[in-house]
């Protein structure tokens, strides 16, 4: 017996989609005027790199509480708090938005809609709103970071939920467990590694959301970095970068250990 061909309608739709994609790319490339390399490329990038490899070591520790080390610690504290709050707040949103058997399509669609709205709402406007409420400073930064992060975290969480093996949840349901039992005995244990990695990723983003923290006057490493870039003090930028890289690598290392412990 010969292999039957795959149902046709699939194929036409796929071709149509491919055509649309091609059209989109043609359009996108048409909008970008590609040019050559500039005369200044040499001297400016040389200046930048030489600044980066001759970092301003004196900035590392000055003892006035506004040096690299203190600011990095402050940054971590803000990011930690913001990420933690947002991770907790993201959980209900994620379950709201996840499309699975139990969730009606309408429910998850509204959930996704709300998340999209949160994501689209500019971080800076959130920051302004929180500054008006609690005044400038780290707290406003924490709030802005945590609310804004919900949009991303909950979306990633909800996709993890959608991709999850439903088996263990079924076993809890069949034992008469309610939604929360399912959450704690089937869903979370399965999703822990993914949630952790998204959360840590988000933590890292929060650490690096320098600009936004700078804007709200939240302290942290963001403001001096922006100033240094604006003033083209590449040696200062260099040392700040090294600081952040060391910090992010440490976080990565710790998170790896954490994952191993929990997974």
């Amino acid at each position, binding site marked *: 017996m010969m292999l039957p061909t795959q149902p046709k309608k699939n194929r036409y739709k796929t071709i149509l989609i491919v055509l649309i994609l091609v059209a989109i790319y043609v359009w996108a490339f048409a909008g970008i005027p590609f040019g050559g390399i500039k005369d200044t490329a040499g001297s400016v990038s040389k200046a930048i790199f030489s600044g980066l490899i001759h970092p301003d070591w004196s900035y590392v520790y000055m003892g006035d509480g506004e040096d690299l080390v203190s600011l990095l610690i402050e940054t971590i504290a803000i990011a930690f708090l913001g990420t933690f709050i947002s991770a907790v707040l993201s959980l209900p949103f994620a379950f709201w938005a996840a499309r699975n058997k139990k969730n009606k399509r309408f429910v998850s669609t509204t959930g996704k809609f709300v998340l999209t709205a949160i994501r689209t709402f500019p971080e800076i406007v959130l920051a302004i709103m929180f500054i008006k409420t609690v005044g400038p400073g780290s707290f406003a930064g924490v709030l802005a970071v945590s609310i804004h992060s919900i949009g991303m975290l909950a979306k990633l969480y909800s996709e993890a939920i959608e991709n999850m093996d439903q*088996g263990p949840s*079924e*076993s809890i*349901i069949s*034992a*008469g467990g309610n939604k929360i*039992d399912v959450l*704690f*005995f089937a869903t979370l244990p399965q999703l822990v590694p993914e949630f952790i990695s998204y959360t840590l990723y988000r933590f890292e983003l929060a650490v690096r959301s320098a600009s936004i923290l700078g804007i709200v006057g939240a302290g942290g490493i963001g403001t001096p970095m922006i100033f240094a870039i604006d003033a083209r003090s590449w040696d200062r930028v260099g040392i700040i970068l090294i600081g952040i890289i060391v910090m992010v690598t440490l976080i990565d290392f710790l998170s790896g250990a954490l994952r191993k412990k929990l997974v």
Partner: protein
Amino acid sequence: MGPIVDKKASIISFQNVSKIYPNGVQGLKDLNIDIKQGEFVIVVGLSGAGKSTMLRAINRLHEITSGDIQIDGKSITKAKGKELRLIRRDIGMIFQSFNLVKRSTVLRNVLSGRVAYHSTLKTMFGLFPKEDKQLAYEALQRVNLAEKVYTRADELSGGQQQRVSIARALTQEPKIILADEPVASLDPVTTEKVMDDLLRINHELGITIVVNLHSVDLARQYGTRIIGLRDGEVVFDGPVAKATDETLRGIYGEKILEEPKPEGVTV
């Protein structure tokens, strides 16, 4: 001691139940089945006949398309919220694919069978009473897995995982046990042990048991009643004694049950 079968009480009752999967496959076709308390029912049928579908309809792990299923007189089809959960608490399930949380320990997996007995708050923090843990441990002993109690589920062999899943259902102390091929991955010794256990709790505690099985021998050995499914329809329903080779042929198609061995091999 014979099984305690109360002729009147019908503990599971299918009324015109049909199920069509979203992709159009007809899982169940107009089932009408009454299972009495204390029965030991074995469901047989070809792979894909709808056995798992039928079992999963009983505790409403998936919705049926039409009809009604009653558990102990209460419609599970219409039940909601707490009511539904209480009905389910009385139905233990052993899954074909085990459905363990691979990353959790064996004990935690088994204990999760008890969640419906406790307040959400308590279970959230994993605070199960000592007795529950002891219960779970005894169930593990029963399936010969006592020494793996703190092992992570993903470090177990296939049969060991199957047994964890059985222990979980036992720990739930249900009135009904649904078992989806509970012995598929087990060796004959453990198979007998498990089937004997099911039989014993059926006898001693009067727990109603519905088991999907592939082995006709086992079906004959343990069941009080056999239900044969084919393409989602009941093609046989009666006491084991009546399930002749003839009827089994009906269930499994034209193939003869005890076909002569293929050429060339002598045992």
